C-alpha cells in the first residue's frame, strides 16, 4: 500500500506535482496515466525518497521510504532502464544491489533467469538494447521479491513479445497479492493491464477510479448503420424517435439505442441493412479528452487534440494546407 497525501513538488515557480492524494492498493495493477510532463516520474521519485517533496507526504505501509530498513525487500522499482553503470556486467550490477540489502547471491541468478538474461549475465550493460536494459531493470526490481513494485513506462523500447511478457508479469505479480504501480502515457496499454486507474495532468489528480468504471463513463458507445435505403432508414428512425447522426462516409451513427432494437426496427419496416455494428469510441480518445486542458507540450495543429473524432484522423498535412490557404 502506497499512500500519497497532498504530495506537492515545486521547481521554482513551476509546480510539477500539485497536491496529489490517492492510495495504491495491493492485489491489483494500478495504472498511473498522464501525458508527457504530467509529473508521473517526479511522483515516483518522491515515493522512493529520491526527490524531496515541497509539501505533503508519501508513505509506504505507513512509513517514509528512508525509514525502510530493508528497502529492496519492500519496494522494487524500475525508474529508468539506463539507470546503471554501463561498464558493469548485468550480474555484477544486480550483485551489488543484492549485497546492499543482504540478499543472497543465488537470488541474482534467479532473477536473471526470470527476465531471460542468463545468457548475457557476464556482458556489460552498455552493450544492451533498450529492451534488454528494461529487462535488467525489472530484474533489479524483482531482486528482493518485494510486495510493492513500481514500473515507470516499462513497455518503452520493448518488442511486442517483450510487451506481452511484461503485461503478464505485472498481472501475475498483482495476482500474488502485491501492489503493482505502473506509469504510462498510453491509455490503450493501461486498458490491457491495469485494474485501477490514476490519471494526472500537469501534476493534478484528474481521475482515481477503477478501470471498468473509467471505461463505462468515458467510452462513448454507439451503433453504426449502413443501408442502401438511407433516406427511408432515416425516416424510420425518426418515426421511432431515435436520433441518428450522419457519419462522413454516409453511414449513420445512433447513440443510446441497443443494436437489437435497431435491427428489429429495420426488419419490421423492411429496410435493407448492409451494416449494423456496435462501436466503442477508443479509450485513447477519452483519455485525451480528460487531459486535453492539461497537456503541457502541445504539438501545433489547428485542432485541439481532444476534438479529433475517433477513427477519422485528419489527412496528413491537412492542417498545414489549411493554414497555408488562409
Amino acid at each position, binding site marked *: 500500500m502506497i499512500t500519497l497525501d497532498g504530495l506537492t513538488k515545486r521547481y521554482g515557480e513551476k509546480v510539477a506535482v500539485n497536491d496529489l492524494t490517492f492510495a495504491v492498493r495491493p492485489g491489483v495493477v494500478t495504472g498511473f496515466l498522464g501525458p508527457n510532463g504530467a509529473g508521473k516520474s517526479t511522483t515516483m521519485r518522491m515515493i522512493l525518497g529520491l526527490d524531496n517533496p515541497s509539501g505533503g507526504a508519501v508513505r509506504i505501509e505507513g512509513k517514509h521510504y528512508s525509514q525502510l530498513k530493508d528497502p529492496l*525487500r519492500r519496494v522494487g522499482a524500475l525508474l*529508468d532502464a539506463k539507470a546503471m553503470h554501463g561498464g*558493469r556486467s548485468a550480474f555484477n550490477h544486480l550483485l*551489488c544491489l543484492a549485497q546492499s540489502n543482504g540478499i543472497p547471491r543465488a537470488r541474482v541468478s534467479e532473477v536473471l533467469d*526470470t527476465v531471460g538474461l542468463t545468457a548475457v549475465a557476464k556482458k556489460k550493460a552498455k552493450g544492451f538494447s533498450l529492451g534488454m536494459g528494461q529487462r535488467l531493470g525489472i530484474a533489479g526490481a524483482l531482486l528482493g*521479491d518485494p510486495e510493492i513494485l513500481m514500473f515507470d513506462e516499462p513497455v518503452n523500447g520493448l518488442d511486442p513479445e517483450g510487451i506481452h511478457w*511484461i503485461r503478464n*508479469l505485472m498481472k501475475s505479480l498483482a495476482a*500474488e*497479492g502485491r501492489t503493482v504501480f505502473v506509469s504510462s502515457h498510453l491509455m490503450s496499454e493501461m486498458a490491457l493491464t491495469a485494474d485501477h486507474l490514476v490519471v494526472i495532468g500537469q501534476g493534478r489528480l484528474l481521475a482515481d477510479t477503477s478501470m471498468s468504471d473509467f471505461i463505462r463513463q468515458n467510452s462513448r458507445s454507439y451503433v453504426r448503420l449502413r443501408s442502401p435505403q438511407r433516406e427511408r432508414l432515416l425516416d424510420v428512425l425518426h418515426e421511432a424517435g431515435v436520433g441518428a447522426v450522419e457519419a462522413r462516409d454516409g453511414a449513420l451513427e445512433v447513440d443510446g439505442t441497443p443494436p437489437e432494437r435497431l435491427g428489429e426496427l429495420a426488419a419490421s419496416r423492411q429496410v435493407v441493412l448492409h451494416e449494423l455494428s456496435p462501436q466503442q469510441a477508443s479509450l485513447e480518445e477519452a483519455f485525451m479528452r480528460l487531459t486535453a486542458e492539461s497537456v503541457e507540450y502541445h504539438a501545433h495543429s489547428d485542432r485541439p487534440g481532444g476534438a479529433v473524432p475517433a477513427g477519422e484522423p485528419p489527412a496528413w498535412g491537412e492542417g498545414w494546407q489549411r493554414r497555408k490557404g488562409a
Partner: protein
Amino acid sequence: MTTPPTPQQQPQAQQAPQQPQQFPPQAFAPAGAPAVAPPPPPAPAAPAPPSAWQQAMNNAYSSPIPVRKTHLGNALASEWTKIKSVRSTVWTLGIFLALVIGIGLLAAANTTSSDYNDVPFTIPAFFGLMLGQICLITLGVLVTSSEYGTGMIRTTFTASPQRHRVLLAKILVFFAVAFVVSAGSILLVGLATSAMNSGPEAGDVPWAGTVLKGGLYVSLLGVLALAVGSMLRHSAGAITAMLGVVLVPAILPAFLLIWESTRTLAEKMSDYNAINSLAMIFGADGVDSAGGTSQLVVLIVVTALAVGGAFALLEKRDV
C-alpha cells in the same frame, strides 16, 4: 479487462496456501519464459482462477526471503563489488602502479649507495607519486560522480535510502584500496632500492614512516576527490577542480611572490601544495626535515571539511 474488485467478495480465508514457499522461479515463471509467443492461457501461477487476486487483496503478499535489517557491512560489500567490477579501477590503479614502481625502479637503478646518505630509500617512489596521485584523484572522483553520470545513483539510493551510509561505505572502501595500493607500491620501491643500493655509504635514514605517510597523503587526496565528485556530481568538472587543487598552489606562488603584500600567501602555498608536501614527506628537503607532518595535517583538515560538505549536501538534494 477484469471486473472491478467488489469489497463484499467472500474472504476465502481458508483457501489452500498458494503462496510460494521459497521464492521459486515459477513465482514469476509463467511470464518469465521469454519464449511465450502466442497469447498464453491465463497465468498458470494462479491456482484459484475465480478470484486469485481478490483473495490476494485480503492476504497481501509476503516474501519468503527472510527480512533482515541492512547495515554498514552490506553497504561495504556492495561498494567493494562496485569498485572491482568496473574497468576504470583497473586502468587508474594499473597506471598508478606502473608510474610509481616503473619510475621508482628506473630512478633506483641510476643511483648509488652514496645518494642515500641523508634521504630515505623510498625517495625514488616520490617521483612516480607526483604523477601517480592524478590516477588516485581520477579514481576517487569516478567512484562517486560516475554514479551520477550514468544514473546508477538513483538505483543505488533506491536500494539504500540511507544515503550517508552509502557515502561512508564508498569512502572506506576507496580509502582502503588506495592506501593498500599506494603504501604497497612505495614499500616495494623502498625494498628494491635498499637492495640495489646497500653499500656502506648509504645512510641509516628510517623509511617506514615515509611508506605510511606517503600512502596516507595520496589516499587522502583521493578521498578529497571523492568528496568533490559527490558535491559536483560531474566527472569532468570534479577532475578539473581537483587538478586545480593540486596544480594551482604549485604554480601560483611564482606570480604572487612579485608583490610584497601577497608574499606570505605565496610562501604558504609553496609550503603546502600537494607536490611540495609529498617532497617533505619523503625528506627531500634534508635530514632535519619535519617529515611533512604539518602538510599531512592540513590535508586531513581540508579533506574532513570536504567530506563534511559532501555529507551535508547529500541528504538535501534531489537525485
